């Protein structure tokens, strides 16, 4: 298990005595696996790094070492639906490992954070919070969040659920950017505009809120830089619930400091934990969450349920419910790397 003891799913797993089905080791670092006798006896690997002491960028190197040292390994399970974070060479090239992931356990709480960020800045709460520290009582005319124009960059499952909530709650006008055209007929009703990458400048120039939900790939790394922020309205707010590394963080700081954008709601950072020296801490127009907006008991319950389901399949030698086609993903990664 790639995780640490305090991780909520691990706690639940032990409470439910699921460890009666298996012997396990908690692997937290590359050093730890390297110090073990090789080859190992591991038959399966459960990756549940979120909200653990294992940083997301460490998962690939740890998994690589585990796979190289574990000839009996036939199953890897990802705690979340996204799997890009664990695509290590050994996994992609393996002929004997099946990869499963969590079925549609979408981050309801994460989507609520987007709504919170929107209303927070619409009501100028960041200014009132600053006044509060100065014991200042000063009236300002605030804005309605209703009918806000919201851009969703990276329109997948979370993006769709974000659009649904924002439409319901504040009748938001949604401008979605998707890597490939939408095949869902409901999108026409739900979305005001849907486009691809070429349409990004248009969307950025139109919307009041930009929500980043891009997955981390070689192409999306450091995608949001100063030139992108400059395409946004100066009254617009940037909300990041995707990956911190999709943003050039010093450009974001500069854009916030100099009024190129109005504010930011952040759940993720380039380096996590965010170092205490980061200028982001001192910016009044930043709503800051330490990657906790998806950290709810409900979410972890879903993650455990998914793992449990596949565990039952594994131990009874039945077909898995949610496999990820590694060969297809290999092709995708290859084509992305060639871009």
């Amino acid at each position: 298990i790639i995780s640490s003891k305090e991780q909520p799913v691990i706690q639940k797993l032990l409470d439910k005595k699921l460890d009666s089905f298996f012997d396990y080791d908690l692997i937290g670092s590359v050093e730890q696996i390297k110090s073990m006798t090789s080859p190992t006896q591991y038959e399966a690997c459960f990756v549940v790094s979120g909200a653990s002491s294992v940083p997301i960028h460490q998962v690939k190197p740890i998994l690589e070492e585990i796979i190289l040292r574990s000839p009996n390994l036939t199953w890897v399970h990802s705690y979340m639906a996204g799997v890009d974070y664990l695509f290590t060479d050994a996994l992609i090239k393996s002929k004997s490992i099946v990869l499963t992931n969590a079925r549609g356990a979408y981050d309801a709480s994460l989507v609520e954070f987007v709504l919170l960020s929107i209303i927070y800045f619409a009501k100028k709460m960041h200014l009132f919070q600053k006044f509060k520290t100065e014991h200042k009582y000063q009236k300002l005319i605030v804005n309605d969040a209703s009918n806000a124009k919201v851009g969703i960059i990276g329109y997948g499952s979370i993006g769709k659920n974000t659009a649904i909530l924002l439409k319901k709650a504040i009748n938001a006008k949604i401008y979605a950017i998707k890597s490939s055209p939408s095949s869902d007929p409901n999108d026409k009703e739900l979305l005001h505009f849907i486009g691809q990458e070429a349409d990004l400048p248009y969307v950025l120039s139109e919307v009041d809120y930009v929500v980043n939900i891009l997955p981390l790939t070689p192409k999306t790394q450091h995608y949001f830089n100063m030139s992108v922020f400059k395409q946004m309205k100066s009254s617009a707010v940037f909300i990041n619930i995707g990956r911190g590394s999709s943003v050039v963080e010093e450009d974001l700081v500069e854009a916030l400091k100099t009024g190129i954008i109005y504010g930011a709601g952040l759940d993720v950072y380039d380096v996590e934990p965010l170092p205490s020296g980061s200028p982001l801490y001192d910016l009044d127009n930043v709503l800051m969450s330490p990657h906790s907006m998806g950290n709810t008991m409900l979410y972890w319950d879903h993650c455990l349920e998914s793992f449990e389901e596949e565990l039952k399949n594994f131990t009874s030698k039945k077909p898995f419910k949610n496999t990820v086609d590694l060969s297809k993903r290999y092709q995708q990664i290859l084509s992305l790397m060639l871009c």
Partner: protein
Amino acid sequence: SDVYKRQVSTQSTWDFIMEKIGSKFKLAIMTSKGHPMLKKILASKLDTYFDYDIVESLDQVKAMPTATEYNAIFVLTVASAIPFPMVPVILQELIVRSPKLTWVHSMSAGVDYMLCEALIKSKTITFTNARGAYDRSLCEYVLLSILYFTKKMHILQKNKAEHKYQMLLVDNAWDNTKVGIIGYGSIGRNTAKLLKQSINAKIYAIKATPTTKPEDKDLIDFLGQEKDIPYVLSEVDYVINILPYTPRTKHVFTLSVFKQMKPTAIYINIGRGATVVETDLIEALNTKVIAGASLDVFEKEPLPSTSPLFDMDNVLISPHTMGYTMHGWDYCLSAFEAELKNYVEKTPFTNTVNLEKGYQSSSITVSYTHLTLPTSDLVQISVVAVSLKKK
């Protein structure tokens, strides 16, 4: 809200009305020159249908003849230069000088701050307000407050100030939030609607009387009266105070009331500061009787800089502004225009405030048992007037 369905009248409608009534009526607008709403009224050319004077001060009223020609008064004092304590004083003087007066319209929803003896005792004046005009913005502030505390942002913002990065567990708001609405009227109804749509909240409503509108059936999960307040307070995660300020609701939120709430619960006030004993609220927060508060109104406004509320991490402070957005002025204009139409066409007003029977004629929330203001309030007003004169 009905306000959303109001449309700006077309030119032909107004021409038809003007033909019917023949001449313009005389309107006194209590406000300051340059008030944003005044600009909107003039931009909409509504002044084509009335002759108006801007009434800015008590001196101005006192210099008027003993019998003015005013048929109506529009009170547009919020966000004007007229201080709150002077509003009922000026209104009183204006009403007693205006024998032809039949209509007073308030640009705000709450009217407690403008009540004067002449208005309360009058048998000939109809009093209307902008009920519903500010609901949308206020509802959004309630939703913001709920999400803020559900996501533990008060803790995270404190950590941010200390440059501390520490993951913590937060809650889902959807289908996981119980809300008590104390004083369920137009704002309460719209709040319930928004909270149901956005987070599927469970709504516990407290109303003075059990009468409801048909749409409340799908909005209210528990409907109670004053006697049910302890039950509601013991159940809910968020308590929303939307009580109007009347003699009966003054200082109803005391420490013993806060103690009936869950220690994990949050208190939200978008009603009136005077319905709370503010020192008790501060003590409840200090001694962790409740977990936090989100306040748009205070006993004394502006909130003095010495207030301990400014130093509390688990308190959101808004300077009585959450009802006022750019759209709020549009709805306010629509409300005024709708009643203007009713006035000139002699059709029934939409939102009358009936001071004899209760606070709102269309949905009675609190009943007056007396027609006069409590003596102490009158004394307060007189003292203010005297001290201003001396200056």
